[in-house]
């Protein structure tokens, strides 16, 4: 049998139901793949092998009887931000040292109720703050994709037999993989790397400014951030509560639809969970987009954007036009202010959410000469550099005398950003097409990014607007750049219109194909 880890969720689901394979077999295949690959990729911070085997066994009992949920026996990886009962949950921070919650997040509860199997907890940027997965306490995650070089190989002219064929010598090209390690993006870098490297069938992720879509674009995977309020935030470690949303990273559009259907729910435990039934997202896949109006925002043409990304965007436009969509130019005039407004709102909310890490109720405690000294030492030792930086910014913009100038101004600008989108949708636009990121994956320990935090923040320039407006956005792989690295396109939809995103993303996927890294690990 071919490698079980290479089955998509939809294919594995069919084979499990037809009893061609068992949940135990596919789970064991993933556990051994993780064992072999994780030392190189560092995607998992904890592998829950015993739990995975128990869950798979329980799924097999159900499957044997022809029972089971929509994800029965499907092995998944879970981002370390999701509270998982009795299992390491640290948001990849030292400050949550040893934390094992006595509860289960609503999103993971939904997945287990549908029969999914937990393989382990996935690496991420500390508290989801980062765009490269380098801020994790557990070290950076490595992207399974590597740059490749096109070499010209001169072929000698050869003669075969008497009057046989003559192969005309000349030049042929061959790709050589470069050894430089690249980031998988962040903050859901472990999720993206694991999905792309076949270390889980799909993964949970979260997105506050681009943390699902940017890593998906960097690894040739599909990632969707649903509308704010679609997935319950209950039991997920909070970063910026008005922006955080959970969503899946998967190998193709259909798998992302299957996972989101299970993750999304109406939850009385989260007051921002919206009372709307969860549609069958998979049913939207394959529907024609004929007559659909696709908006192309002129403000997403930014200075210094590589030509390849511009070209990819044009390709995306052509694919959708060929499929019968009507392409219209639109303007979202406040786009450039989304990132600066985000860097006020998100740190402000983070500084407040992260006040709870005080060395008293959970996690790390560093003793001090009095209680304040203990707080200060615990937080100094427990938080990494990027987290401290954001807490400091947040504390400053919320401090007396600065609140109006920063926080209030940013929240007003946020309304203007949202209004831009509302105007476009009111004019009849069904979906908006943009690039997902301003570049392909970059190197681990990139000097420019390390020297200037703002350079790293610019990674989210195309994704952050969507969080500020609470809209759904999907990143779908659309091609490879000249060095063989994946690039993605983003589709932005109306609130709670994830179906149109899946429908349109599938058209792009049909045209572009799917992408797999060449295995070196």
């Amino acid at each position, binding site marked *: 049998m071919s490698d079980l880890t290479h089955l998509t969720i939809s294919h594995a689901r069919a084979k499990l139901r037809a009893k061609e394979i068992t949940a135990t077999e596919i789970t064991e295949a993933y556990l051994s793949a993780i064992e072999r690959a994780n030392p190189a990729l560092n995607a998992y911070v904890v592998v829950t092998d015993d739990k995975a085997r128990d869950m798979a066994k329980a799924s097999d009992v159900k499957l044997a009887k022809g029972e089971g949920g929509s994800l029965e026996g499907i092995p998944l990886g879970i981002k370390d931000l999701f509270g998982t009962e009795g299992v390491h949950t640290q948001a990849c921070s030292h400050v949550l040292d040893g934390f094992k919650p006595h509860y289960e997040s609503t999103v993971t509860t939904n997945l287990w109720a549908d029969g999914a199997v937990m393989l382990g907890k996935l690496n991420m940027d500390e508290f989801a703050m980062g765009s490269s997965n380098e801020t994790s306490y557990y070290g950076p995650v490595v992207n399974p994709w590597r740059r490749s070089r096109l070499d010209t190989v001169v072929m000698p002219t050869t003669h075969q037999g008497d009057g046989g064929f003559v192969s005309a010598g000349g030049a042929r090209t061959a790709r050589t993989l470069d050894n430089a390690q690249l980031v998988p993006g962040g903050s859901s870098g472990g999720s993206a790397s694991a999905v792309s490297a076949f270390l889980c069938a799909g993964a949970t992720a979260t997105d506050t400014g681009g943390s699902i879509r940017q890593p998906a674009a960097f690894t040739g995977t599909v990632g969707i951030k649903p509308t704010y309020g679609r997935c319950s935030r209950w039991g997920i470690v909070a970063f910026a509560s008005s922006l955080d949303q959970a969503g899946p990273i998967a190998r193709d559009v259909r798998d992302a639809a299957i996972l989101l259907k299970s993750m999304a729910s109406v939850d009385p435990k989260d007051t921002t969970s*919206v009372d709307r039934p969860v549609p069958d997202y998979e049913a939207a896949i394959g529907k024609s987009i004929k007559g659909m109006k696709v908006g192309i925002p002129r403000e997403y043409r930014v200075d210094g954007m590589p030509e390849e990304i511009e070209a990819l965007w044009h390709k995306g436009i052509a694919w959708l036009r060929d499929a019968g969509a009507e392409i219209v130019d639109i303007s979202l005039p406040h786009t450039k202010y989304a990132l600066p407004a985000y860097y006020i709102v998100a740190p402000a909310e983070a500084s407040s959410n992260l006040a709870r890490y005080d060395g008293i109720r959970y996690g790390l405690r560093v003793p001090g000469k009095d209680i304040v000294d203990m*707080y200060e030492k615990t937080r100094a030792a427990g938080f990494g550099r990027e987290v401290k930086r954001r807490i*400091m910014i947040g504390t400053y913009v919320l401090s007396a005398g600065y609140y109006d100038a920063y926080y209030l101004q940013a929240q007003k600008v946020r309304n203007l950003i949202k209004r831009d989108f509302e105007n476009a949708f009111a004019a009849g636009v069904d979906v908006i097409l943009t690039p997902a990121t301003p570049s392909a994956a970059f190197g681990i320990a990139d000097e420019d990014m390390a020297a200037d935090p703002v350079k790293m923040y610019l990674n989210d320039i195309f994704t952050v607007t969507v969080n500020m407006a609470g809209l759904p956005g999907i990143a779908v792989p659309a091609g490879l750049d000249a060095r063989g690295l994946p690039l993605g396109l983003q589709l932005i939809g109306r609130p709670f219109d994830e179906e149109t995103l899946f429908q349109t993303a599938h058209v792009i996927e049909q045209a572009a194909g799917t992408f797999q890294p060449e295995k070196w690990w």
Partner: protein
Amino acid sequence: MSVDLHTVKRVARLARIAVSEEDAERMTGELNAILGFVEQLNEVDVSGVEPMTSVIPMEMKKRQDVVTDGSKAADIVANAPATEENFFLVPKVVE
């Protein structure tokens, strides 16, 4: 607006994060880079614009005022670094 070393130390104190002299100096530069970046928001005309309170217009959900949970003190203190008989232990705060 920009911050000086003194302000950075004051903010670190408010955030309850111990910083060394060296940390504070490095942070001053980093925070000023970020504050310089967000400065551009001042050029946006926001007259008559309300600050956002919720991205999705919705009534805040209220649940019934009844006890739905409880009797799990041991679970609540289970992850604390220091406890005694289901109490959190902290350094002495009152002389």
